[in-house]
């Protein structure tokens, strides 16, 4: 890259490029800076470093809410994600299935900012580039995640668990001075109703059964008012009855929210999913309705072997 080249780069390049300066020509270098400076003073542009996560607006005018394009991640040479392309429509309930090691959890990690891909892009709506945001910022723009193992705050009551998860100003001093308004109480109560744990509002979360903890986790997600819910293995270790209630809960959430469920249990997936994506070795193997997917010979092969 020559100096004159880099000088003409857009403001974005100025801030995010990894170019190195060639110090052989100081005059050229200064010219480059001059142009960069001009770019910086342009009034019709907002610089990415000036934009705060909460100011970002979700734009789903083209349909999809999540675009994953050509993602690659490798851990010590092992390709966990390999040229992954995945699009999720707003309001959809999508199930992602796949054998162990197919990259399901890694995909969730990329979306939530826990893992950075080696290449590719991940957009939330048309405009929000997830790869430029930190974990808390991603939570702030409206992506909530439920983990495989339920982690609720064991020493807090259910009510307090939901209170902490609530969408609010989460900086230190506003949090110190925060008092619950009547509206917020109603919202917590409403979510307690949705997850069916209203009677247990004052119980310590540590005393809940496994299934109840899973629902509380989903409730905590809802309190954040996310546009997109990522739900990792919601029915692992649940009884059949609990599974049915979870299915009801998740289907009731779709529409208002976009829900992506990663799950192993095929019966459960069949009971909730309209569209299913099968991952295998880090990329999409098949996509479609449950019946289509199940009759796909490649899927059968992956799941059942030769």
């Amino acid at each position, binding site marked *: 890259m020559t100096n004159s080249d880099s000088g003409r780069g857009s403001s974005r390049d100025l801030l995010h490029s990894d170019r190195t300066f060639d110090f052989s020509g100081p005059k050229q270098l200064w010219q480059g800076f001059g142009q960069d400076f001009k770019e910086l003073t342009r009034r019709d542009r907002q610089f990415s470093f000036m934009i705060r996560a909460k100011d970002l607006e979700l734009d789903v005018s083209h349909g999809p809410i999540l675009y994953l394009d050509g993602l690659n991640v490798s851990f010590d040479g092992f390709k966990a994600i390999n040229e992954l392309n995945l699009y999720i429509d707003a309001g959809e309930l999508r199930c992602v299935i796949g054998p162990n090691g197919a990259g399901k959890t890694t995909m969730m990690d990329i979306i939530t900012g826990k893992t950075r891909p080696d290449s590719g892009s991940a957009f939330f709506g048309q405009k929000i580039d997830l790869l430029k945001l930190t*974990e808390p910022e991603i939570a702030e723009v409206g992506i909530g995640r439920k983990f495989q193992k339920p982690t609720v*705050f064991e020493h807090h009551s259910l009510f307090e668990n939901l209170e*902490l998860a609530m969408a609010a100003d989460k900086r*230190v*001093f506003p*949090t*110190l001075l925060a*008092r619950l308004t009547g509206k917020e109480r109603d919202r917590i109560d409403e979510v307690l109703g949705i997850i069916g744990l209203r009677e247990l509002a004052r119980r310590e979360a540590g005393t809940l059964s496994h299934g109840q903890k899973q629902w509380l986790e989903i409730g905590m997600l809802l309190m954040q008012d996310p546009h997109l819910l990522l739900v990792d293995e919601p029915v692992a270790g649940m009884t059949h009855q609990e599974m049915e209630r979870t299915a009801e809960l998740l289907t009731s959430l779709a529409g208002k929210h976009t829900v992506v469920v990663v799950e192993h249990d095929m019966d459960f997936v069949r009971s909730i999913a309209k569209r299913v994506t099968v991952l295998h070795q880090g990329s999409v193997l098949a996509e479609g309705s449950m019946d289509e997917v199940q009759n796909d010979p490649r899927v059968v092969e992956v799941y059942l072997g030769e």
Partner: protein
Amino acid sequence: MGLLQPLKGDTGGQIMLAVLALIAILVPILNLLVPEGNPLHVSTFTVTLLGKYLTYALLAVAVDLVWGYLGILSLGHGAFFALGGYAMGMYLMRQIGDRGVYGDPLLPDFMVFLDWQQLPWFWQGFDQFWYAALMILLVPGLLAFVFGWLAFRSRVTGVYLSIITQALTYALMLAFFRNEMGFGGNNGLTDFKDLLGFDLQADGTRIGLFLASALALALGYWACRWVVTSKLGRVAVAVRDAESRVRFIGYRVDRVKLAIWTFSAVLAGVAGALYVPQVGIINPGEFSPLNSIELVVWVAIGGRATLYGAVIGAVLVNYGKTVFTGAFPEAWLFVLGGLFVLVTVFLPAGIAGLLKTLRRRRAQPETIQREATT
């Protein structure tokens, strides 16, 4: 939402504060009005001893705030206590003026002894009480802020964090032992004469310091309760129990920790500042890692995450220390160690936990009876 809001539901704390108020009223009366020789007379020595315990109690509350509610086991809180103490000590040194052994109007004795010609820059301003008071808050607070900013941002947690807090206080101890540091080296700062113009040896001043310590403890306790009963306090406990989950919800865990950690260090500094005029000396021994570990033991014995338990633990253990080191000086460390082991094994929730269980057990037979009769 009144001033008493933070104490709602905190029976132990209410009792503790009531006892504290009672002592704060009775002790001065028994000292000043009851003549010496009367069995009810409280000697000035005892007043000062009690005042010292109260500053320890405030320090213990500060430790319990970060350990019990935030999950940070600090093995270096003695450092903040000592820094607050040194800031107060520097003011007291400057107050001596030309009454020192060498009679230098400006330089403290140890500087004259070291043949220093002028006051180091960091001793400037300490002749003013307001400046010293500011430094008492600022120096421990600033150190805690910088230390915490580096540690929490890098997500250093658990044992590793405990070890570096220990290293922090050890490093400060070694530094303060050096004469070149300008803090009196090995001997520290001592030979204080007066505070705000009041003679430090006078009974009235001793009582004043005792009352100031009681007030500081009450206010510090109230402030800590205010923090732990706020939403931030609930976030702190959540950080203690499931740190990464809190991060995913969208809180900046490092900032939450930094704020509470710094506040706790400031409280420890205030405790140190009240401690120094009562014991009459501050030396690098206060930075000793052993001190910081001992004070964690007070909190453990009193009961973690209760705040009032820390007060009980600090006062009881130090009373025991006074008695034991008088009777069998060599045995004290074994007693303390033994006590720690016994409490950890048999009373994991400390004395506060024991009290809670007893209360519940006493309440239960009544309810059973009531149910039986109805």
